């Protein structure tokens, strides 16, 4: 077993062009964060030699809430609003796999309409989250227009999500057995308009941000993660796909309606910050495609309660009336004290930042025995430690922004 020195570790992995030397005492130590504008609640302790980062130590936990423990004291369904607070702008993607794990333990499958509704909201969330990421990325490299534009355009997606669920951010939309609301009548029209708007708008994004010579120069060749190292470090999501890894949870284990809708998973092989930005950019395009298909499907098929019949078969007429009028699915009072049979399940879903994995264990009570969450940002945090050394201090924001690190999600 070798001595763990950062430079050596990298050369062992075959990463060329980075420094290989022992740590020295007289290095300049700078604390980037946790109060910097844009960096969020996270600190990176950086030791620099001149302008070169020698060592970067991500110091997380500033917004830690011990969700894994809190969930053990709460009933199953109450954990949905809890877990979505990891990434509130990506709420559906984050919670859908938890709900899937519960469904696996219960042994039920949501009806197709619920699957499509969840997929629809997941993709709306994905676009919103990617735009959020782009915005923060823009701030990091000083491009304030990108920030303002993507936050303004995110509003379109938030508006759609609000129409669909009744809440702008924390939708708490998926529940075991289905989804909580059907889409309103005027939704398909609005969604199609938004899709057409975004198709045109993405071109402008490309011109002012991705193809802007200043931005390109700043991103190209920064934070390169070769394919082998990406697999070794276990990075997820756009970071992995920008390094040539053809992995997407939607692809590996299609959930909800993802095995029925047609879409591509963009993969780039450069592995630098620019490739990561392009993965996100292309993913927005694919999400638009999925939204179109989901809306088409939902419009064609008859409107019925998007929930498993186990929770709807005994619905009184009042509930059906409410569903007809508002599209709202009433919950059985037993939902509150839902008892799951003993069992264990794992489920994964692809959030905007990468794959989220839930391990859920039930011992037959109304509360979980154990829930283990591994969120994408928590897995990507390792990039700071192994990839940032060797680059310049001014590259750190670029790397940070390009892996789209989101502290509340990593800290859980």
């Amino acid at each position: 077993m070798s001595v763990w020195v950062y430079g050596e570790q990298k050369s062992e992995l075959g990463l060329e062009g980075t420094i290989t030397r022992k740590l020295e005492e007289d290095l300049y130590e700078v604390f980037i964060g946790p109060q910097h504008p844009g960096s969020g609640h996270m600190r990176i302790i950086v030791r620099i030699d001149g302008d070169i980062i020698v060592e970067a130590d991500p110091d997380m936990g500033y917004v830690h809430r011990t969700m894994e423990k809190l969930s053990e004291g709460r009933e199953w369904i109450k954990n949905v609003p809890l877990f979505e607070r990891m990434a509130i702008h990506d709420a559906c993607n984050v919670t859908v796999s938890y709900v899937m794990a519960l469904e696996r333990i219960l042994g039920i499958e949501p009806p197709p309409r619920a699957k499509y509704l969840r997929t629809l909201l997941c993709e709306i969330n994905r676009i919103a989250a990617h735009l959020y990421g782009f915005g923060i990325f823009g701030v990091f490299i000083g491009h304030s227009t990108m920030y303002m534009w993507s936050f303004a355009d995110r509003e379109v997606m938030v508006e759609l999500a609000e129409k669909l669920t009744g809440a702008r951010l924390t939708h708490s939309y998926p529940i075991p057995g289905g989804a909580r609301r059907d889409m309103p009548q005027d939704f398909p029209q609005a969604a199609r308009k938004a899709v057409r708007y975004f198709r045109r708008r993405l071109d402008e994004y490309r011109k002012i941000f991705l193809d802007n010579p200043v931005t390109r120069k700043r991103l190209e060749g920064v934070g390169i993660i070769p394919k082998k190292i990406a697999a070794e470090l276990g990075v997820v999501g756009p970071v992995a796909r920008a390094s040539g890894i053809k992995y997407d949870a939607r692809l590996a284990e299609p959930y909800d309606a993802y095995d029925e809708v047609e879409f591509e998973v963009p993969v780039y092989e450069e592995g630098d910050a620019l490739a990561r930005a392009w993965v996100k950019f292309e993913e927005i395009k694919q999400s638009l495609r999925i939204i179109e298909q989901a809306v088409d499907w939902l419009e064609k098929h008859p409107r019925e309660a998007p929930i498993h019949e186990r929770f709807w078969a005994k619905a009184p007429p009042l509930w059906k009336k409410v569903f007809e009028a508002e599209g709202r699915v009433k919950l059985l009072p037993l939902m509150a004290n839902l008892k799951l049979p003993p069992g264990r399940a794992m489920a994964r879903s692809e959030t905007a930042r990468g794959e989220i994995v839930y391990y859920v264990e039930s011992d037959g009570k109304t509360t979980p025995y154990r829930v283990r969450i591994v969120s994408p940002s928590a897995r990507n945090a390792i990039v700071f430690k192994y990839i940032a050394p060797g680059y310049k201090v001014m590259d750190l924001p670029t790397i940070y922004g390009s892996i789209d690190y989101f502290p509340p999600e990593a800290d859980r």
Partner: protein
Amino acid sequence: MSLDQARRIVEEALSGIEYRVDEGKGFIEFIVAKENLVEAASRLKKAGFDHVKSLTVVDYKAEDKFKIVYHASSYLNEDLAKVIVGIGTEVPRSNPKVPTLVYVWRSVEFQEREVFEFFGIEFEDHPDLRLLLLAPQVAEKKPLRKDFIVKEEPIIRTKPPTG
């Protein structure tokens, strides 16, 4: 690839090591003895499981043991990517020490640090076993162990509303 096929691959890889299979919904776990953990994990890695998705530790207080499972999967092999296979071990609660798997899977480095602070499980030979998320005074209480109890409020209020 289905879980059964994955099971056959892993069984082949683990030949010569004693193991127990724990099945769950959507994954499969192989529990080996603590001494064989590093060897088993290395063989699993050679079989193509190149990263760890989740280092899951469950505290079975009634049985007085921790179950430590590394849920691995693959990136480079697109077939194996469809399954999640766990390799794990069980340690008594009184002496929670396991060899680290950082040198097998680099992706567990931060997760092992996390487990260390939440459960107090010591990973021997881990290069950088420090606290990751918690403050020292909180980590002392080992919050994810079952001894640490978070109580929910009752649904009937005793204090009247103020507003």
